[in-house]
C-alpha cells in the first residue's frame, strides 16, 4: 500500500454513508451506494447494526458477494429473515427504524427530494419515481440523502416533492445528512449547513454547484478520507468498481 491512499469520489461517498450508521441501529437500506455503505458499516464500526430491505429481507451481515440489487441471491443467503414488504414498512411506520437512506435527482434546502419529474426550465424528464423513498423520508427517525452535486440538481425549491424534507407539522424524523459528490451537509432543523468538504474541493466550488445559499461556519472541515480497512472492504464488495467507479485518483473522479 502506498502512503497516500487513492480512492474515487464514490468510494468516499460510500464511506461517508457507512459512517452515518451507528452500532446497534436499525437501518433501512436503500438502493445503490447504501447497499455498500451498510455492508461497510457492518464490517467496520457497526457490527451489531441490523438492515431492513424493502423487498422484505432482514439481515445482520453484509451480502455474501457483490450485489447489483437488494434482491440478488447473495443478499438472501444467510439473511436473518425473509418476510414481506409490508412487514418491514410496518416497522418503519412504527418508528423502529433509526436511519434510512434515499437518493434523489433534485434536492432543495429543506431536504425535499424529487425523483419523479425533473427538468425545471428545460423539457421535463420523467424519472423512475418514489420506490420506497417517500416512505423512508416520511417514517424513519432520520434520513441520509445521497446526491450528485450539480447546479441543476440543487434548487431553491424542487419542482415535485417525491420524498418530503422538513415541513411544519412533521411528526418524526426528516433529513439529517446529505452526502454529495462534493461534500457532506447537515440538514437537521431545516437548515442547509456544510459539515465537510471532500478533499480538494473548495467552498467556492460547492457554492457554484449549489442553486441556493450554503451556510458554513468558519473554515470548513475536510471529509475524513477512507481508511485502508474501509477501502479494502469496498474493493472486496465491489471488485469491478460497478458502483464505486474506475477512475481511481486521489479523491477525484
Amino acid at each position, binding site marked *: 500500500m502506498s502512503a497516500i491512499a487513492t480512492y474515487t469520489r464514490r468510494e468516499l461517498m460510500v464511506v461517508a454513508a457507512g459512517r452515518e450508521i451507528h452500532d446497534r441501529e436499525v437501518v433501512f437500506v436503500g438502493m445503490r451506494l447504501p447497499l455498500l455503505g451498510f455492508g461497510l458499516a457492518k464490517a467496520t464500526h457497526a457490527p451489531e447494526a441490523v438492515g431492513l430491505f424493502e423487498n422484505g429481507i432482514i439481515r445482520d451481515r453484509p451480502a455474501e458477494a457483490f450485489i447489483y440489487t437488494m434482491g*440478488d441471491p447473495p443478499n438472501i*443467503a444467510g439473511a436473518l429473515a425473509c418476510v414481506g414488504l*409490508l412487514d418491514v414498512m410496518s416497522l418503519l411506520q412504527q418508528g423502529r427504524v433509526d436511519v434510512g437512506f434515499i437518493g434523489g435527482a433534485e434536492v432543495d434546502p429543506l431536504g425535499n427530494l424529487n425523483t419523479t419529474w425533473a427538468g425545471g426550465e428545460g423539457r421535463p424528464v420523467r424519472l423512475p419515481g418514489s*420506490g420506497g423513498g*417517500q416512505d423512508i423520508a416520511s417514517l424513519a427517525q432520520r434520513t441520509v440523502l445521497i446526491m450528485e452535486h450539480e447546479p441543476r440538481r440543487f434548487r431553491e425549491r424542487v419542482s*415535485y416533492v417525491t*420524498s418530503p424534507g422538513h415541513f411544519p407539522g412533521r411528526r418524526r424524523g426528516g433529513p439529517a445528512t446529505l452526502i454529495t459528490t462534493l461534500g457532506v451537509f447537515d440538514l437537521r432543523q431545516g437548515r442547509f449547513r456544510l459539515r465537510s468538504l471532500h478533499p480538494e474541493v473548495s467552498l467556492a466550488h460547492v457554492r457554484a454547484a449549489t442553486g441556493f445559499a450554503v451556510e458554513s461556519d468558519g473554515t470548513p472541515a475536510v471529509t475524513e478520507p477512507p481508511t485502508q480497512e474501509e477501502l479494502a472492504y469496498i474493493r472486496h464488495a465491489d471488485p469491478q468498481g460497478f458502483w464505486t467507479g474506475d477512475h481511481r485518483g486521489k479523491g477525484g473522479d
Partner: protein
Amino acid sequence: MSDKRQSLGDAIAAHVHDADAIALGLALESGIPFAAVHELIRQRRRDLTLIGPISDMAFDQLIGAGCVTRVIAAWVGNVAGGSGYCFRRALEQGIPHPITVEEHSNFTVGLALKAAAMGVPYLPTLTGIGSDIVRDHPRIRPQDDPFGGPPLLAVGAIRPDVTIVHTQRADRHGNAHLWGNLGLTLEGVYAARRTIVTCEEIVADEVIRSDPNRTVIPGLLVDAVVEVPGGALPASVQGYWRRDFETFLGYHGRSRTLEGYRAWLDEWVLGIASRDAYLAHLGQPALDRLRVRDQRLAAAANFAP
C-alpha cells in the same frame, strides 16, 4: 383439487384479456415472471393497466411494446441501470402512445393491494404526509382518525384482474412454495380476481404438503400453474438462477433509442417462440454461469403430529 397445469401460451390466452389490470413483479427484483411478460407481448395484449411496486425492466418492456395504457406503481426503470427509456418515451413524447401513471410509493401500492386482499375499501397510513404524490391523488385521501389521533391518509384498495408470479415450485393444483424475499407477493395474489403461477418445477403434491409454511400461495387462489424453467430470467430465483446482469444492462443500453428497443424486442421477444428458445438464444456459457448448482439446504422442519 383440480389439475390446473397449462402451457404458458394457453394460460395467458385464457386468463389475461385486453384492458385487464395485471399485477406482477411483486417480489421486487427477484422472481419477475419475464417469460409471462414476453408472452403477453407476443400475444399482443392491449390497453393493460400494470400494477406493482418497483418494476425492474418488465413494465418498461411492456410499455415499449404498446401493451399498456396505465401504470399504477412506485417506480418504473432498471434497478442497476437507472431510467426506463420506454417509460420515459411514453410519458415525455407519447411513444408508442401516451400512458397515464397513478403515482405511489412502495408502501402505498402494498397497502392498496392489502386492502383488497383483506376485503376492505382502504387502509390508513402515515406515509406520504408532506409529499406531492398524495396531492389530489385518486386513491389516497386525507382521513381523520376516528379515535381522535392526528390526521392520517387513507389508501384505497386496488383489485388486480390478474396477478402473475414466478416461484420455485408448485404442485399441479397451484399450491406454490416460494422462498427468499416476498415483497408484495401475498398481497398481490390474495387481492387478485385470477392468479397465474409460473414455476421452476411442478412437483408431487406431497412435496408441497411436507412444508406448508413455505406454501405462500394456496392453490385455491390459482387459476393456472405453468412449469417454466428459467421463467424469471434475467431476474434471479433463489436456489435456481443468479441475476443475469448482462441482459439487464444490455437492455438498458439498447433501449436508449427507439430503434434500439425495437431491435432488442425483435431479437429477444418477437423472434423467440418460447422460453426454451429464449434459453437457447442466451447460450450454454451464459446458462452455465447463471444456473445455481451449489446446495445450501435449509434444516428440516419436523411436522410430525
